[in-house]
């Protein structure tokens, strides 16, 4: 789980935070409700997670609430790796 959060957090910082932006982003920072990742950008984040971990997250489970923090996304990864 820690490995997942580290990888996903690095990706979020690299892709969704402008270089030079000094906002603190941690594993529990609200991503969707906090305006860091919008619902359109969520698609590329989902695609990254699926590709990285070889999983498929059904659209019904890929809700804004389920993607609202790195911790929650990591929980999705764990859940769908078991499927």
């Amino acid at each position, binding site marked *: 789980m820690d490995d997942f959060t580290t990888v996903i957090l690095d990706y979020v910082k690299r*892709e969704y935070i*402008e*270089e*030079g*932006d000094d*906002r603190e982003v941690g594993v529990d920072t*609200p991503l*969707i*409700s*906090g*305006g860091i*990742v*919008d*619902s*359109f*950008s969520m*698609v*590329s984040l989902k*695609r*990254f997670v699926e*590709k990285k971990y070889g999983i498929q997250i059904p*659209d*019904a489970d890929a*809700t*804004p*609430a389920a993607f*609202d923090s790195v911790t929650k996304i990591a929980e999705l990864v764990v859940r769908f790796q078991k499927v």
Partner: protein
Amino acid sequence: MVAPTIALSSWETAERELGYRPSGPINIGWYCSDRLCELGLSATPALLWEDHQGNERTYTYDDLRVKTNSFAAWLQALGLRPGERICLFMDRVPELYLGFLAILKMGGIAQPLFSAFGDESLHTRLENAGTAAIITQKKHVLKVRKIVGSLPELKHVIVVDAPASQLKPGEVALELDALPPVQQFDVYPSTAETPSVLHYTSGTTGQPKGAQHVHYSLIAQYITSRVVLDLKPGDIYWCNADPGWVTGTSYGIIGPWACGVTQVVLDAGFQADRWYAFLQKRRVTVWYSAPTAIRLLMREGTALVRKYDLSSLRHLCSVGEPLNAEAVIWSEEAFGRPFHDTFWQTETGCIVITNLPGMQVRPGSMGKPFPGIEATVLDPKTYEPHTAPGRVGLIALRPGWPSMVRSYWKNPTGYQNKFRNGWYLCGDRASIDPDGYFWFVGRDDDVINTGGHLVGPFEIESALLEHPAVAESAAVAKPDPINMEVVKAFVALKPGYEPSADLELEIMNTIRRKLSPLAMPQEIEFIAALPKTRSGKIVRRVLRAQEFGEPVGDVSTLMEE
């Protein structure tokens, strides 16, 4: 004997209610702040704002009057002059809303841009407009810094949430709430045709066009807010639209404040429970939302709705794309009242076809033309109105309503092309039933309507071609259950590159950063070659038809592979 009654038109009614006299002064900034104070609303909250962290700010109408005076005087002191384009590039913070009025009060042209735009989208629009100043936030100034060197007309970069010590040379800090109060300000004496707002909108060909509006648009925005949105004194009103787009200015600033209601703003991303909690906490009475948001709420179910007291809601409207019948029916079940669909676009400046309060909503229908708007559907070959009901044609409006776009910035040909046979063409297709209800069919061009926002394929394809792996590309709409349409790109790769999931994600992210999340293809299909005419022009309609499962039509002019 009964005296004959002379019915005033909608526009005459608005002029009378606003105390506007033809040829007299009309300044949207003044009408949305000072006038309400003169009417006794000084102490009424104009803006109740909060963000995702729970920070709150409140502004009364008198605050609005004084602070927009201060803001306008500060812009003047900086050297900005009437007629100059001043860009607002911010999230939904109070500085955006008050800055908009301040720019209009000092005679500037407000140019709002969606804060999620990437540096390339931003550059295109600032360069075209010859923008003199940009007002932004610390997190967005990073994008401005990448392009400011190639924008010689951009004289001022203003940052509203950072001290000067954190800014680069040439940037200016502005702390709105610390500005000295200016009680009296000489509002720019604009008249009906004085330019007010410049909104950029996408078309099939070329780069986005700057739709230029004038102060007289207020007449239509005020009366449609009062009649269609049913805004009344004492209302608490929530418009979900971002002021980077036209709904967020026409009905997120101008119309509601001209009506003197209290606006609430939530500067946070979508989250169903947070939205319901906000509606409950603020006791919202009128809610103007969008089909995409409604469908996201539908996905969360009615059980969640039941956890909140939403009994304050009196009227619901929707805009951005056709509201499907299921969403109308669901809203009746969830909220006890239907969402009323409203149809309009950047160029119309105000709602033009709609379901009025009290009108029987036919789920899935756009409604009827707003009184004062002459609307029809035209035969696409003759540009004459269809005479028989039920026939699909081009939605067209008779020019002359107050908020009609007056020009496209530096693009007179593009503007002229919007008119045929004495009609303004909206670019959409619809039919009209025997009772006069309009029924949306689809776009008449290649523009992609995603989540209620129009995205032009040309801009995406141009950005795709900048990627080193892309030889040629086509961007088309793909159906989507939430956003109605999303962008799909077909890409042919240069020799030496192979399709892969890594490359697909890299291209997606490139477009998101350069243009915007809306423009990012949600899917990329790698193909050997794109369908083209014999003259070499890419034929998007074939690809689009495939995505929608529609007949591809005449392919006799296509080049054989």
